[in-house]
């Protein structure tokens, strides 16, 4: 069991968090850039020292302000995958994965055996002698995970594990990561800015705002009872509580307030929650000819620039059910989007995430 109760201050930024997580579970910290996610991971890893509080994993106390105790990173049972992975560029894949084992002076035979097992587990045996700079993003990710897990840590720290991957790789790695994490005996703390990732990975989700957790709960709790407008906004605007009314060909029809949605059949269970990321929704002035199963017509209700850069616009559409889409400024202009203009909003069944 991880218990972390930390206070830390850096310039004007203050972090104050009190979180706990059980072994075999994943705690996701979700928040925007600058909300303190990475700072929290660094405190857990021992790379930075909190000003107050206590951090303990099981009966090992890593930090306790009261007794002035602080355990250096190399003496904590952690596996850390930083956002940029930080693989050692001069070492081979094999040497990267075996780094921690070598550093803790395990016998050669043990190192070889465990590294071989990890390489096989992550499907990178063929890359063993390559340098990290010569392999793909997804492969690098596996190397970093292998390095982090080599010493069977009690706490695995993942900082935006998909941020460095391109989109297709990211989709594949998500499934792989989910299978991996569900089989790990350790506590996993996973940091992301992407609410969808948080919902997909978190047994427990903490929403971070300005260094504080404004809501901590499981997926249902967050989705059904967002405690603040910020959380609701952050988790996505298209959330529908509904009931499966028909199934077929792997597609389920979900009746919800205001309309029926076609989504990927979640299997068991009829009470579902459907979330559609605003970016999954395609807008057009003509009825779309493509294969999207969900097509809704409605008038543009409101256009709001998406902070911070304002490069994208959020478009609220008075369809049944009401939807919020996100488009680039350029495409909004080329379509002539303005309040009152009638548009078609469409998304694929795979564009919706279904929670039971």
């Amino acid at each position, binding site marked *: 069991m991880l218990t972390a109760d930390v206070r830390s201050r850096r310039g004007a930024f203050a972090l104050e968090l009190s979180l706990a997580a059980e072994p075999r579970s994943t705690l996701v910290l979700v928040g925007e850039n600058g909300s303190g996610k990475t700072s929290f991971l660094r405190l857990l890893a021992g790379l930075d020292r909190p000003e107050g509080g206590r951090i303990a994993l099981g009966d090992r106390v890593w930090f306790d302000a009261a007794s002035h105790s602080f355990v250096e990173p190399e003496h904590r049972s952690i596996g*850390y995958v930083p956002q940029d992975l930080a693989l050692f560029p001069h070492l081979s894949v094999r040497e990267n994965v075996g780094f921690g084992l070598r*550093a803790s002076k395990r016998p050669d035979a043990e190192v070889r055996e465990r590294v071989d097992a990890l390489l096989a587990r992550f499907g990178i045996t063929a890359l063993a002698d390559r340098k990290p700079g010569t392999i793909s993003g997804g492969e690098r990710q596996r190397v970093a995970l292998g390095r982090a897990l080599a010493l069977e840590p009690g706490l695995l720290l993942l900082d935006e594990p998909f941020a460095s991957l391109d989109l297709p790789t990211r989709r594949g790695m998500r499934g792989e990561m989910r299978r991996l994490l569900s089989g790990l005996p350790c506590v996993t703390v996973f940091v992301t800015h992407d609410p969808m990732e948080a919902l997909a990975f978190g047994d427990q989700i903490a929403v971070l705002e300005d260094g504080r957790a404004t809501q901590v709960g499981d997926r249902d709790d967050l989705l059904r009872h967002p405690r603040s407008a910020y959380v609701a906004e952050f988790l996505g605007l298209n959330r529908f509580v509904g009931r499966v009314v028909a199934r077929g060909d792997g597609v389920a029809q979900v009746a919800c307030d205001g309309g029926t949605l076609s989504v990927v059949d979640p299997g068991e269970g009829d009470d579902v929650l459907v979330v559609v990321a605003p970016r999954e929704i395609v807008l057009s002035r003509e009825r779309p000819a493509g294969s999207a199963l969900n097509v809704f017509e409605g008038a543009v209700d409101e256009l709001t620039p998406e902070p911070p850069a304002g490069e994208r616009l959020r478009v609220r559409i008075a369809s049944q059910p009401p939807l919020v889409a996100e488009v680039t400024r350029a495409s909004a202009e080329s379509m002539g989007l303005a309040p009152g203009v009638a548009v078609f909003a469409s998304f694929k069944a795979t564009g919706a995430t279904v929670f039971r």
Partner: protein
Amino acid sequence: MTSPAAPPAAPARVSLFRIAIAIAAVILLALLALPLVALVVRIPPGDLIARLGQPLVIDALRLSLLTTVAATLLVVVLGTPLAYLLAMKRLPGQRAIEILVMLPMVLPPTVAGLALLMAFGRMGMLGRSLSAFGITLPFTTLGVIVAEAFMAAPFYVLAARAGFLSVDRRLLEAARTARASESYAFRRVLLPLALPGLGAGAAMAAARALGEFGATITFAGNLQGVTQTMPLAVYLALQSDLEAAVALSVLLLAVSVALLIALRAAPLAWMGNSNADRRRP
């Protein structure tokens, strides 16, 4: 009549600015190159080889190589830890230490030699304690090494510090979270990645040691076979035997060029490598 389709060709205007730049550059390059050319063409290759066989030359060459290697090793062994501290830690009086380390670069070498004499000379601050241990620095080969190390140290320490600083901190953090002690992270991550910087620093230090004259002659004197390095031998030969001085100089020039090539090649090779590492398939 003006036709928008075919504007008249603009008169070839050679800018005054460009001419001025080119002239200045050519003058300076000539200033740098001409003396070297004059030196090399002064003596026929056959004569050069004959001159290099003289005992004066052989002694000076032997001594120069010995002291340069020894001074460079001394600077590397003692300078690497200092560079590491300067790069990685916040030391008390960091600025003062940095100024102290850089000082020999700007100090007139004769002043450095005199200062060494005041410290390690027979009547100097530490000279007496040293001689109690049977160690004499002034006017000995050991003194030459100390003088060269004194003058060469900043070149190595600054380059090595830059080398250490060029290594991404996040790699060191990754090493520590993977159970590496400070010394393991140093040996396995920091040192290999900073090596090109350390190599460049060592080459610069060696070049400085090889060319050192002022501090050596002031602190260690000019005794053939004992403290008379090549630059000193050139100076001495100049007063009696111009041809020998030229021969020695050509030899020094060759060694300097070789060092410089090594110096340029090392970081280039490294950059080529790291580019290859960053390449994504």
